[in-house]
């Protein structure tokens, strides 16, 4: 059974139909944390976040406080919020921007105050039409309410927040590609070093890029203290986290659970969450953290939902998305479709990613459609090894960004876990699930 003792930190308002309005936000304690923060020294606000040990919720899981400490002494700098959620089967930022945009904006202002940044760009995925409207409305209301603009809430702090729509490109979730897009260019990731955003970011200035969910945690942390946040969870994984559960489960959805105290099994089977597999089938595999992550078999279902716990088993909690595949799932088709996605979304700068994704996609297509050969399996593994030598996780880098080395995860997982399924496709000359 799942452990449900932790408070809801970022999804507490979701039950209200008008959760996205300023009036509901104010009626449920909204903008109190910001008023508190404005009475504190900026560096004390930052140290609360440090104390919370808040790990970034975008995918890489870098400690937010440490990201900030790189920026704090810089003379001119920007805060950019990454709301370009595009990792397949991840839909928790979508949930936050539509249902609680004021919580996001309050978190953003708190962060900006801690960093003494006066211009913030909130970059939201272009496909979030409603989310863009809700966040823009929240920004308009926050100006009206005195939480944004000149000398907010009578303090000496002034700040502007600009909502910036993306236009459909997975790669813009990568922070340096996002910065390029924000500069009005194609979303080509930058080479690091030297282009670490905290050193050389937007317009060459020091820039912090934080995820939507990371920002949404800040009002609670200021209201309750960093120590209270750090008391939740376990190890390096503190607090709660939103998990997007999808695939072959009875109740797919976004669920906020305490980190480490719950397992994959809890999330998938507890009636409060996933409620079990559709038709009570058996789990074949899960993808534990977005399609970039290597897969797990059912023997790892009792693994706690913690960043290090999952990393120790050779995968990642990543973007907080969990996909359940059961006995009805064709894993060859699943891995092929994921590769097709990467092939479509590769920005094309680096050869291993641009060419490799297309080669793997074509070989996988052939296998799934009954035209594969036995030697294709070794060929595929060789291709994968060329993109991410050694096929470890985290991967060896051969490209500017991590998109390329993420391509092999699903194909390598599928071949090593379900080789017989591939052989069945080859021998039958068609997909056994067709």
């Amino acid at each position: 059974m799942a452990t449900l003792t932790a408070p809801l930190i970022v999804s507490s308002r979701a039950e209200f139909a008008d959760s996205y309005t300023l009036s509901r936000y104010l009626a449920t304690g909204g903008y109190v944390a910001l008023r508190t923060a404005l009475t504190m020294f900026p560096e004390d606000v930052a140290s609360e976040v440090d104390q919370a040990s808040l790990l970034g919720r975008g995918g890489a899981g870098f400690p937010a406080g440490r990201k900030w400490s790189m920026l704090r002494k810089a003379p001119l700098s920007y805060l950019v919020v990454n709301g370009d959620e595009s990792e397949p089967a991840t839909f928790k930022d979508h949930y936050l921007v539509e249902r609680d945009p004021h919580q996001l904006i309050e978190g953003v202002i708190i962060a900006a105050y801690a960093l003494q940044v006066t211009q913030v760009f909130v970059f939201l995925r272009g496909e979030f039409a409603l989310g863009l409207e809700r966040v823009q409305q929240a920004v308009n209301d926050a100006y009206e309410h005195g939480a944004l603009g000149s000398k907010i809430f009578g303090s000496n702090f002034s700040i502007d927040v600009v909502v910036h729509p993306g236009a459909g490109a997975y790669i813009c979730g990568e922070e340096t590609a996002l910065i390029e897009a924000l500069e009005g260019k194609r979303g080509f990731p930058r080479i690091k070093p030297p282009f670490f955003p905290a050193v050389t970011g937007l317009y060459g200035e020091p820039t912090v890029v934080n995820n939507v969910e990371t920002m949404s945690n800040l009002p609670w942390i200021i209201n309750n203290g960093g120590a209270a946040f750090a008391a939740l969870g376990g190890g390096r994984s503190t607090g709660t986290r939103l998990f997007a559960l999808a695939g072959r489960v009875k109740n797919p959805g976004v669920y906020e659970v305490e980190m480490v105290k719950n397992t994959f099994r809890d999330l998938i089977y507890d009636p409060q969450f996933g409620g079990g597999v559709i038709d009570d089938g058996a789990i074949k595999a899960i993808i534990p953290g977005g399609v970039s992550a290597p897969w797990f078999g059912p023997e790892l279902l009792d693994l706690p939902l913690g960043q290090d716990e999952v990393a120790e088993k050779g995968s990642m909690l990543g973007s907080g998305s969990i996909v359940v595949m059961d006995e009805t799932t064709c894993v060859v088709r699943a891995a092929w479709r994921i590769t097709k996605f990467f092939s479509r979304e590769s920005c094309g700068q680096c050869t291993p990613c641009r060419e490799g994704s297309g080669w793997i996609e074509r070989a996988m297509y052939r296998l799934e459609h009954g035209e594969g050969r036995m030697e294709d399996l070794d060929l595929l593994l060789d291709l994968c090894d060329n993109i991410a030598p050694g096929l470890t996780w985290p991967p060896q880098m051969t490209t500017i960004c991590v998109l390329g080395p993420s391509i092999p995860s699903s194909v390598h997982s599928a071949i090593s876990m379900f080789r017989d399924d591939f052989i069945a496709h080859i021998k039958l000359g068609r997909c056994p699930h067709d």
Partner: protein
Amino acid sequence: MSHFRVDIRQRAEEVLGLYPRARSAMLPLLHLAQEQDGYLSDEGIAEVAELTSTTPADVRGTASFYEMFHLEPVGKYVVGVCTNIACLLAGGEEMLEHASAFLGCAVGGTSDDGMFTLEESECLADCDVAPCVQVNHRYVRTTTPDAFDALVGDLRAGRLDHDVPAHGTLIRVHRSGGLRAPRAEVASQRADAQSAREARANEESK
């Protein structure tokens, strides 16, 4: 002579005022150009180039990188059906096939009456209502063929005009006012923060 309508031109100029550099307004301005014409026309691209002090070739080269920008005319409704992993497991491919047959157009094509353009989408981040369908980037949450057919009927009859604006109109809530943290104020705020830091450092060292 501006190609943009008066209201679009005015919003474009407001958008430009929000960024330290004009080129940063590229994506929002392209969305505005698409709002006016339903796609990126040559005239729209030329105007964005003028507004961002770039060239039409540069604008086109940027726009073509992004899935949401259409360089050729599309239907009033662009229907996106997701077939990525979560939707694949929920019949996304079958939904796309159905949509293609029902609308009478290939994936990537436009129906004969010019009303609908059909696309195969990548993950649209609504995976608990799978397979996911968006029309003009609004979630319509039709997960069965029957529901999809009914939706198309409603769109054709104009019953959803309020919920689903014509293709190109992305954000109907506009920013009220420009930037309000004046540069001079920001400079003095930084100086104040710095002296507060120093005062505290002195305090602590005593």
